C-alpha cells in the first residue's frame, strides 16, 4: 500500500520535472525570439566608447543658463500631474463603487464599467493627448486631459478592487442594525478604504509626473517639451541640464510621495 503511494509520488515528480524542462525551453525560445526582433547583438557594444564620447562632450559641459527655464517648466510638469491626478480621483471614486462587485447596483453596471475602465487603461496617455490636441490645441491642458482619462481607468480598477476586498466584519455589523444598504456602504466600507484610496492616489501622482514628461515630447508642455526642443536643436549642453532637473524632480516627488503614503495608511 505504502509502496503504491510512493510510486504515485515518483510519477508525479517525474511529470512535474518534465513540465519544468518544457517551461525552461519555452522561456529560452521566447528570449531568442525577442532578441532577434530587437536586433540585440552583444558585439555592437564594442563601440560603447562612442556613447562615452557623446556624454563627455555634451553632458559634462552643461549650459547652466537654461536652469531657471528648466525649473519653471518642471513646476508646470508637476502642475499637469496634479491636475491629471486630482480630476481623475474625483471621477474615479464614485465610479469605483458602481464598478465593485459588492457595491454595484446590478451586474450589468459592474460589467459595463469594468470594460470601460480597462479600455481607458489600455490606451496610452500619449494617444489621448494627440486626440485632444484638435480640441484644446497643443499645451498643458491636452496633457492634463490625457493623464486624467488614463488615470480614471487605472484608479477606477484599483479602487473597485480595494472596495471588493474590504473587511466584511464592519459591513455585517452595520447591516445587522437594520441600516439601509447605502448606509452600510457609507459606514461599513468607506472608512476602511479611504486610506488605501489616498495611498494609491499619491502613487498615481508620482507615476503621473513621469508620464507627463513623456507627454511633453508630443507638445503637451512642461519640462518634457523643453527637453524635446533642446534635443531636436542638438543643444546637448542644455539637454544635460534638463535631465539633471528632471532627475532631481522625480527623486524629490517619489521621496515626498513615499512619506505621505506611509503616513495615511
Amino acid at each position, binding site marked *: 500500500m505504502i509502496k503504491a503511494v510512493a510510486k504515485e509520488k515518483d510519477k508525479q515528480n517525474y511529470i512535474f520535472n518534465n513540465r519544468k524542462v518544457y517551461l525552461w525551453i519555452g522561456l529560452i525560445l521566447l528570449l531568442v525570439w525577442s532578441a532577434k526582433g530587437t536586433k540585440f547583438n552583444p558585439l555592437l557594444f564594442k563601440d560603447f566608447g562612442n556613447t562615452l564620447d557623446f556624454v563627455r562632450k555634451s553632458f559634462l559641459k552643461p549650459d547652466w543658463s537654461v536652469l531657471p527655464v528648466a525649473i519653471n517648466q518642471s513646476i508646470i510638469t508637476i502642475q499637469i500631474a496634479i491636475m491629471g491626478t486630482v480630476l481623475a480621483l474625483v471621477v474615479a471614486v464614485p465610479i469605483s463603487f458602481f464598478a465593485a462587485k459588492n457595491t454595484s447596483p446590478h451586474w450589468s453596471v459592474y460589467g459595463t464599467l469594468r470594460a470601460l475602465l480597462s479600455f481607458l487603461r489600455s490606451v496610452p496617455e500619449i494617444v489621448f493627448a494627440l486626440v485632444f490636441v484638435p480640441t484644446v490645441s497643443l499645451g498643458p491642458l491636452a496633457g492634463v486631459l490625457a493623464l486624467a482619462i488614463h488615470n480614471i481607468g487605472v484608479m477606477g480598477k484599483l479602487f473597485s478592487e480595494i472596495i471588493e476586498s474590504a473587511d466584511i*466584519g464592519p459591513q455585517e455589523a452595520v447591516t*445587522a442594525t437594520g441600516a439601509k444598504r447605502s448606509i452600510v456602504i457609507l459606514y461599513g466600507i468607506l472608512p476602511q478604504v479611504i486610506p488605501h484610496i489616498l495611498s494609491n492616489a499619491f502613487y498615481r501622482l508620482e507615476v503621473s509626473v513621469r508620464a507627463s514628461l513623456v507627454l511633453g515630447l508630443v507638445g503637451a508642455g512642461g519640462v518634457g517639451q523643453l527637453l524635446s526642443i533642446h534635443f531636436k536643436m542638438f543643444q546637448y549642453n542644455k539637454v544635460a541640464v534638463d535631465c539633471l532637473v528632471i532627475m532631481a524632480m522625480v527623486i524629490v516627488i517619489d521621496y515626498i510621495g513615499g512619506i505621505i503614503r506611509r503616513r495615511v495608511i
Partner: protein
Amino acid sequence: MLLQLENLSKQYVKDEVFALKNINLSIKEGEFISVLGLSGSGKSTFIRCINRLINPTEGKVFFEEKEVTSLEGEPLRLYRRNIGMIFQQYNLVPRTDVLTNVLIGRFGNLSVAEILFKKYPKEDIKLAEEALNQVGLSKYTNRQVKTLSGGQQQRVGIARALVQQPKIILGDEPVSSLDPVTAKEVMSLLREINKSKNITMIINLHSVELAKSFSERIIGINTGKIVFDGKPENLDENEINNIYK
C-alpha cells in the same frame, strides 16, 4: 414564543456538506443561551440565519410567531432592528469615534439625510450616552475606537447593540479574543443586561466553563446538528465529549 426555528438547514455549496442540518428550536423571551461547538461546527451559520446575514437553504425562522425567512428589502431591514449583534473582532467602524459607533445602532431608524449630515435626534444621542454609561465607557465618548483596548472595544460593540433596543442580542464568539479576566467581565455585563432589560441572549462560546457559569441553557452543535440542548447542570463529561468529538 419569541423565536422558533423549524427544520433549519444551510448548505453553502450544492451537493456538499450541510453547515446546518434540520435545526428545531424554541427560544423564550429573556433566556440566556450559550451555543457550544467546534470551530466549523455551524455555530456562526446558526446565529447568522436568525438575523438573516445568511439565508438558510431550507426551513423557517419565526420571530414573535411571524415567519421571517422570506422577508426581503424593507421588511427584512425593519426585522433586523429587533436583533442586536456583537462579534469576535468587535467590527467597529474604524477612524470613527466611540459615540458615532454606538449611534450606528440607531441607523436602522434614521433617514439617509440625518446620517449623512450627522443630524442625529437628541433622543438617540441620549440613548447612546446611556448605553455607554451602562457598559462603563461614559468617559470615552469622543475617543477614536482604535485607541481602546479589546475589552473596551467589545463594550462599544455591546453599547451599539443596546441602542437598537433589541429583543435579542446575538453574539458570535464575543469573548474569544479577550483574556480570561476580561472575558468574564464582558460575560457578566451581558448577563446583567439580560436580567435588567430582559433581552434574550444567544451567544456562541468556545469555553465550556463560561457557558456553564453564565447561561441558563446550553445548546451543543456538532457538524451542523444539535447534539445537546439543556440546562448547564445536565452538561456532563459525556455530553461535552459528544459536542467536541
